[in-house]
């Protein structure tokens, strides 16, 4: 797809500049930001235990990661004992092949999908379409971007980058069977139309694919959390339910899942609890009147096992709430598509280089001011700035840092380590800048500082350095 070629993480800078010029994006992001940050704050104010729950949540995930092999095996056994099947997949191709195999085994022509970031990571829709199987995204946001042939721009609000008039335009272009004169401006009419269109499709699919927020080792259950109910209809009505999950989604017990659920919705949307939290265990039972006849779980690695035992292990605690991007001033400026892959914002800035390589995604951990707001709001206390810094170190060590920055730092460090020389050099520079900028007090353009003066005035120094003035005043 053209779109994906254009938006690689490598192109972050270019993507970002294009996104910054997009007025619709700016409008959409301005609208959403307050909802997320204000909502989260309110939910937290209502729960005095929130910070203690965050500690617990972190500890649970750490415990799982330290014993991941054990819990995966326990989980697998439980799934099998409840009549389900577990498939292991090292790469996205393995996931695609497994999904296609299962689909072929029931002669599927149509697949319904609940929102799944692992599905995005594995390009499942493309794989299905290439094999002649229709994939229908049922989450409203996912549906909107699917008909626009876009990637999600946010891990929990896939269409957060769009305004309602953009959605209206896409609906008119896609739902050509409906009256072109119909009124469709406002969100309620848009939702109504999507509901009607999708309702028919629920009954056509032979396979339903969902993600999983958690996999419970104690019971072999998968848990999804949604607000729309699409995930439930997608998994209940078709004959086969496939769960796509990465290996770190495991939690030991239902109690542990409950703790994580308490921090998830509050961090994500500011809800006390999402509307639908669904715990699924195996296929339908003998006497059941509904539910899928087959239940498959595909466990994906795709580079995660390489993060274990490294400084990036903490990232595997992530429960995909999106709070980091909702609070990130960089994400809120450029939107999710600038990041060029599935995971945007601070969590993406750490995860994407881990999964795609820092040579592909080196910009992402660099495009941060280290303001620390992401870490402040993370429900599982991932030290995101620290991990971005680790990527910068790895990048520097493998000589991937751009030459200009590299030599600039070396030259600067040479001076800094020689304070007397530094003082003399800086004294001269300050003097020159002062003489040049004295009249205005500032510069509107400066050689070597174009990045600054393109957008801002540069203040002129006061004439002498502090060190010069101080030694003069001390000698008086």
């Amino acid at each position, binding site marked *: 797809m053209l779109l994906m070629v254009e938006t690689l993480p490598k192109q972050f800078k270019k993507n970002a500049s294009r996104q910054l010029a997009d007025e619709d994006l700016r409008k959409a992001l301005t609208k959403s930001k307050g909802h997320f940050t204000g909502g989260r704050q309110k939910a937290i104010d209502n729960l005095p235990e929130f910070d203690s729950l965050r500690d617990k949540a972190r500890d649970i995930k750490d415990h799982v990661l330290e014993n991941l092999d054990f819990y995966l095996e326990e989980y697998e056994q439980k799934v099998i004992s409840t009549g389900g099947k577990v498939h292991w997949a090292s790469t996205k191709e393995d996931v695609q092949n497994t999904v296609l195999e299962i689909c072929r085994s029931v002669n599927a022509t149509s697949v319904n999908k609940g929102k799944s970031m692992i599905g995005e990571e594995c390009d499942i829709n493309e794989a299905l379409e290439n094999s002649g199987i229709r994939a229908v995204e049922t989450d409203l946001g996912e549906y909107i971007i699917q008909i626009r042939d876009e990637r999600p721009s946010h891990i929990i609000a896939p269409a957060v980058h769009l305004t309602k008039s953009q959605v209206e335009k896409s609906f008119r272009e896609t739902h050509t069977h409906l009256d072109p004169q119909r009124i469709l401006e406002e969100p309620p009419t848009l939702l109504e139309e999507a509901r009607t269109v999708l309702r028919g499709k629920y009954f056509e699919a032979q396979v339903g694919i969902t993600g999983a927020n958690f996999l419970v080792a104690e019971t072999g259950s998968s848990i999804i959390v949604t607000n729309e*109910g699409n995930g439930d*209809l997608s998994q209940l009505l078709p004959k086969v339910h496939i769960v796509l999950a990465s290996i770190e989604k495991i939690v030991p017990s239902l109690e542990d899942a409950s703790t994580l659920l308490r921090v998830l919705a509050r961090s994500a949307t500011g809800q006390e609890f999402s509307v639908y939290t669904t715990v699924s265990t195996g296929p339908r039972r003998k006497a059941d009147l509904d539910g899928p006849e087959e239940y498959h779980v595909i466990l994906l690695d795709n580079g995660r096992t390489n*993060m274990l035992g490294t400084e990036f292990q903490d990232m595997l605690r992530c429960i995909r709430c999106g709070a980091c991007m909702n609070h990130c001033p960089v994400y809120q400026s450029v939107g999710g598509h600038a990041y060029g892959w599935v995971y945007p914002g601070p969590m993406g800035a750490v995860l994407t280089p881990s999964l795609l390589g820092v040579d592909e995604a080196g910009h992402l951990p660099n495009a941060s001011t280290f303001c620390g707001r992401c870490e402040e709001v993370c429900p599982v206390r991932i030290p995101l700035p620290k991990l971005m810094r680790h990527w910068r170190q790895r990048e520097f060590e493998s000589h991937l840092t751009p030459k200009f920055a590299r030599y600039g730092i070396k030259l600067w460090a040479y001076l800094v380590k020689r304070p007397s020389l530094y003082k003399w050099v800086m004294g001269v520079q300050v003097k020159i800048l002062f003489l040049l900028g004295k009249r205005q007090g500032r510069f509107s353009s400066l050689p070597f500082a174009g990045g600054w003066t393109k957008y801002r005035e540069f203040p002129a120094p006061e004439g002498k350095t502090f060190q010069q003035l101080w030694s003069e005043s001390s000698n008086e």
Partner: protein
Amino acid sequence: MNEQRQIILNNIRRSLGRSGPMDKEKISALKDRLTSPKRNLIPERTSLTSSSLITLFKDMAEGVFASVEEVDRLSDIPRAITSYLKKENLPSQVVMSSDEVLDSVPWEEQPLLGISKRIPEKDDMVSVTSAAVGVAETGTLAMFSGPDHPSTLNFLPETHVVVLPKDRVAKSYEDVWDMIRNNTAMGDRNEKKEMPRTVNFITGPSRSGDIEQTLLLGAHGPRRLHIILVDSKETN
């Protein structure tokens, strides 16, 4: 796929700095953690007497746009449903299943209410179910799937009416797990004390914020969630 399994497990062990499987002591400690799971932190807000717990449940459910009404007896339910449907301008045709609570309601006393006992179809407008538990902490209903409660009833029709006996209001999600483990909430159908195929926690009617973060009710699941809290299981 077995090969993949081994590759992934080996990778994990290598990354974690272990050459083989864990030692036995460690394994038995981890198994204990799974067989007798401990509760983590439960929010203080549910440390209440049973009547305040019901108030909390009601407040929380209404806070997420469910409507809640209270009736004294099971025999009040048919009339309550009829007048709710009338008020909302909905047809008085409902689809429901047979379960312990619903079967003890004297439906015949309200002949205007059309009842179909089956799993719902595409055009069914209203479903009636009971709920296994009401979780006061967040005004959440817990539904267990089974022959007496097909999950589709919770999602397909536009309006979902839920009957919840007040003695089923519990504090936290953890109470739900204990009920399943102790077989106290599912009658004889859970002799093995196993997880139902589906546990649905439902907190208010379906919604979406996907268009400009505008909160809209009724995305794919029900637009309306009406909870009828009933005082006792007795008919009279």
